[in-house]
């Protein structure tokens, strides 16, 4: 009977939604929420002995520290296997799951498995350290993902080879193993060249890490003469959301009046961002876009002016491609308007 400890966030832990994202870590006997699926799938092979529930904000604002805080709670149950999430496409939950698995693996020496959607930003941070089963982007993928999480955990626990990423369903960890191919390297090279020359789609055997480094733009030479623009992915839009910006996976962006923001604030604007609790920002928009402070500084002559429009999109779960297109659109407007510098506020 293998002993399993499960980590989930405040939402899957049935404590609450975004408003409870600051929940401090607690431990509950037995399985909660998706942990019950783990129990059902394990049948007689094992059981979830305890579930750690922790708020996503509490965790992701200080991951290493909180992981260290939680570790003794897990250790007390002497588990054989640790499962976190799956986090699907939730970025902060992904950080929590990744960090917990990494910490458990390193400090307790037991297998630790989680699951995420490939574009979860936490994947880049943790895939090298932790096995991450590939999931759909929301919990509709739970039933499909959990069996793979358990299968992989079981293999690791019994010191069996996990199999290739494709076989076992985990995201490539960026760890390369030496294997013998069926054909000589030279033959593969010739075949690859002929495909490339024919314009067919090709795959390289040595991909470079996706860096997308952008050279820093030259600094503002004279702040006093500068126009500063405000940009945010915090989804702060007029209450009627006239441009129908999506609350998740946004494909659009909008621009709105800074004067209106300054004068009317949260009477006029609110955040449609689904990825976090928008209460505080909706109480006082300055907590996202610091129009009050910037206006003071403008009056004192620190810089010439605030660009009359602020630019908005919703950053949560935006695919890299969308983010790039939205960014390019906003950048083009700033460029045309001759803006000197931008402050981008992200949640």
């Amino acid at each position: 009977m293998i002993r399993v400890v499960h980590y989930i966030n405040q939402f899957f832990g049935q404590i609450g939604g975004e408003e409870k994202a600051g929940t401090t870590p607690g431990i509950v006997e037995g399985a909660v929420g998706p942990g019950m699926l783990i129990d059902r799938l394990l049948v007689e092979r094992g059981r979830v002995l305890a579930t750690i529930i922790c708020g996503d904000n509490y965790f992701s604002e200080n991951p290493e520290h909180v992981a260290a805080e939680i570790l003794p709670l897990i250790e007390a149950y002497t588990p054989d296997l640790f499962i976190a999430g799956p986090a699907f496409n939730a970025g902060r939950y992904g950080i929590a799951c990744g960090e917990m698995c990494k910490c458990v693996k390193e400090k307790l020496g037991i297998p630790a498995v989680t699951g995420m959607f490939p574009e979860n930003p936490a994947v880049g941070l943790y895939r090298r350290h932790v096995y991450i089963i590939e999931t759909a982007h929301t919990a509709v993928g739970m039933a499909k993902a959990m069996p793979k999480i358990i299968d992989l955990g079981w293999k690791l626990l019994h010191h069996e080879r996990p199999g290739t990423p494709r076989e076992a369903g985990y995201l490539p960890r960026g760890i390369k193993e030496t294997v013998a191919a069926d054909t000589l390297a030279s033959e593969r090279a010739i075949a690859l060249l002929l495909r490339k020359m024919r314009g067919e789609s090709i795959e390289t055997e040595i991909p470079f890490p996706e860096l997308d480094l952008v050279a820093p733009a030259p600094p503002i030479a004279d702040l006093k003469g500068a126009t500063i623009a405000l940009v945010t992915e915090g989804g702060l839009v007029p209450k009627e959301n006239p441009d129908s910006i999506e609350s998740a996976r946004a494909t659009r962006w909008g621009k709105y009046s800074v004067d209106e923001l300054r004068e009317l604030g949260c009477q006029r604007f609110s955040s449609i961002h689904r990825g976090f609790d928008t209460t505080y920002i909706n109480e006082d928009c300055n907590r996202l876009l610091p129009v009050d402070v910037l206006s003071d500084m403008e009056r004192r002559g620190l810089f010439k002016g605030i660009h009359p429009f602020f630019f908005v999109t919703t950053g949560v779960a935006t695919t890299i491609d969308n983010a790039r297109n939205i960014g390019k659109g906003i950048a083009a407007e700033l460029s045309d308007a001759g803006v000197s510098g931008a402050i981008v506020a992200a949640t």
Partner: protein
Amino acid sequence: MKLEINYYDVKEVRFGAATAFSEGILLINKGELIRLLSGDPRIVCEDIAFAHPGERVRISNVLDITEARIKENDDHYYPGMLGPIYRAGEGRTRVLRCAAVLEIGAMQGFYGGLIDMAGNGAQLTPFSKTINICLLTRPAPGVALADYGHALKRAGLAASVYLAKAARGITPDDVEIFDLPRPTKDLSALPRVAYLFQLHSHGESREPFVYGENSRRYYPTILHPNEVLDGAIVCGHYNISTSIRNNTYTILNHPVVLGLYRRHGREVDFRGVVISPEPTSLTEITRTSMMAAGLMKNVLGADGVIITKEGGGHTDVDLMENCNACERLGIKTVLIDNEWLGSDGAGEFPLLASSPRADAMVSVGNVDAVVKLSAMDRVIGGERLSDFGTSLAGEMTIPLRFIPNGISQAGFTYLTTEDR
């Protein structure tokens, strides 16, 4: 240029009263061969030993690996190295196939390799499938590294020619013609492909020889593929790791050249080979890459090029510069390279240089990978490698880079990496 290679398949090697070849059996007069090699005062040939595939034998301190070859109507091979300079790649050449001649020599500063003829290690190298004729040598007292290197080179080549003589006058087992015909046949529908062969050129004992001259004395230049296949280029670099030099055997049986050759007229129009040194400064690299790409585009008329490098991480720069230079001229490139991923394979940056144009690469494996070798019954060539601390007897783990063609930058390997 028409080259006819006559292959004689060696099934077994034994010592005998006279050096002779008959019915696949190569007899070697040990005393005669040792005397031939010891004629050079810089070197002492201590012994000759063989290892057949499947024997539980470990061969250590392997420097260059060549093949027994000779020109049919001559007593020579390896132009510019052993004898007169002549153009390689024409006429008739005799090759004792399925056998290899191994230069064994230990000295501080020489990077010898390790070959297992059986067990786990045998899967990692093609040289577990050749009958290996080992020339066990050491430097004569008081001889400097470079001089011993030259002497060892001569010895290895001399032995390979001496052995190939034994098959004179016998019907070959196999004949292959290497001829890139002028277009009597219409090749215009076929993709025009060429090969860019980077040669290490970082100094004495770290360079191959081209027609007997150090690679660094050359600018990018064109060779007929037959010249590569017929002894124009010889490995001379003992002072760098096994994994980052192409041994002579691999050059004589160059898998990229042979692969393109065997497709010529059917799948490709094989336009030729450009060899290029790998200089040590960025200015020079800019020059060589510009020139090499120019030869590819404007003289060979290639639309697609395979590029291989030779050497350590620095030469990833040459590889990427050559890639950039060719791609900028509209030539499509495929690059072969090994990766530097650390012993756990988790290294974040596989190469020491990169280019957005290097979108089609073939990996010959992780140079830092550590492999397990089964215990062997016998060790030929010395109980220790000059640059590896542990004893070589018994079961052992060793980095892959010590095994000849465990990493093969010319692509003569099945080993590669896969994501886990």
